[in-house]
């Protein structure tokens, strides 16, 4: 079991850290994930993909912890307040001419995306899971995975290329105010 699980731990840590951006909290999440994987080792599908199974446990735990910490509604989507807060928090963000925000740090820009887009970008683009595995893991149809990828990457590009993000228009539905 150890020999099968161990090779995936660096990637699990990377995914958790990219989601949480806090080393200790991320490792707590990975530890929780591994404990459950060990306890439920006999429950996995033998023909299934172990990597996808581990990532599914981690992602599920991430979602329930986030719900638990009662921050469920706080998708860090980039509305006006969000942009300002991010800029305060991120010293690499600079205010270019014409008041456009430019992020030099791809990672910080990633944080400005809605969580579902961020997860898909990480699972596909960084962790190399297939579109099918990502769809199964996040519980959405494959078409939704593709559209989250597409929208997420487009927003990321705008942030990093310093284009004006029309946050209000795109995110009006997301805000609960």
């Amino acid at each position, binding site marked *: 079991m150890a020999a099968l699980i161990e090779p995936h731990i660096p990637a699990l840590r*990377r995914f958790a850290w990219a989601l949480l951006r806090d080393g200790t909290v991320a490792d707590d999440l990975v530890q929780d994930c591994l404990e459950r994987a060990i306890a439920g080792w006999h429950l996995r599908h033998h023909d299934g993909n172990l990597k996808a199974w581990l990532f599914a446990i981690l992602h599920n735990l991430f979602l329930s912890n986030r719900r638990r910490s009662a921050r469920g509604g706080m998708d860090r989507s980039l509305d006006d307040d969000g942009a300002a807060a991010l800029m305060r928090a991120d010293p690499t963000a600079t205010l270019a001419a014409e008041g456009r925000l430019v992020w030099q740090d791809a990672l910080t820009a990633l944080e400005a995306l809605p969580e579902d887009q961020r997860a898909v970008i990480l699972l596909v683009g*960084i962790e190399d899971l297939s579109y099918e595995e990502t769809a199964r893991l996040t519980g959405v149809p494959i078409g939704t995975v593709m559209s989250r990828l597409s929208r997420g*990457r487009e927003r990321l590009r705008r942030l990093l290329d310093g284009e004006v993000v029309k946050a209000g228009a795109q995110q009006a539905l997301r805000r609960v105010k």
Partner: protein
Amino acid sequence: MTAASSSEVPVGEDDLQAWIDGRLSSSRRDAVEAWFAMNPEVAARLRSMASQQEKLRAVLQLKHDEPVPARLRVANLVAARRVARWQGMRRVASVCVWLVAGGAMGWVGHATLSDATRDRAPTATAMATRPMVAEAIAAHRVFAADLGRPVEVAAAQEAQLVTWLSNRLGRPLAAPDLLPLGYRLIGGRLLAGAGGDPAAQLMYEDARRLRLTVYLRADHAGPTGTEFRFSDDPAQGVTAFWWVDRGFGYAVSAEGLDRPVLLSVAEAVHRQVTQRGTPSPSL
């Protein structure tokens, strides 16, 4: 003009994403790149996305290459688990002494009762008439469909939930962990079973929001036996696997779930309840 058949399909958004991910067949990639030549603006955006993805990979690779902390070593986690289980067993043992004392008295009367009813109630047909199962299915139907308030106490307060239900049912319970099967606990509620016995319903949900419930209460009616039995309510599409273990009935119900999947969940629940010695007084 030089198009192979796969390049005649119009380029779609999913082709563009797969291009970024380098997951296109070579003929399809050629088609996309030919399309780029005619759509230079989109091509520029896509190239920008691809290079950003590379940057992101490079940054995150640093995290990947860090040494793994000792606490995340599988061997250490397995060892810690052994210690925790031993301590848990000692706790369970003290509870069991108490339960065995109470259970033994009930067991004598119970055994004679079930002997008398056993041949009149064959396993296969016991389901529809067994109140515990009918209640479980009905409770599933009512609460699993409830989007607004499916549970009374959310999983966020798991400790309180478990303590509360344990107190009300008079048995130490623990919510089975079904995460390895893809189901997370969303909470539970207290219900009144037939005859006024308190019953607990725990609700789980998978990534597709498909819900299943675990229903449990004291059940001395009819035959006992830890073998799984299948039951369904064809009118409602709710299916359940259930069993009775030492006077305690369990039913795992879901709607629209394949029977083998539901069975594997029922097995996981059964194994965990039995391992924890909850509420079986047989340890």
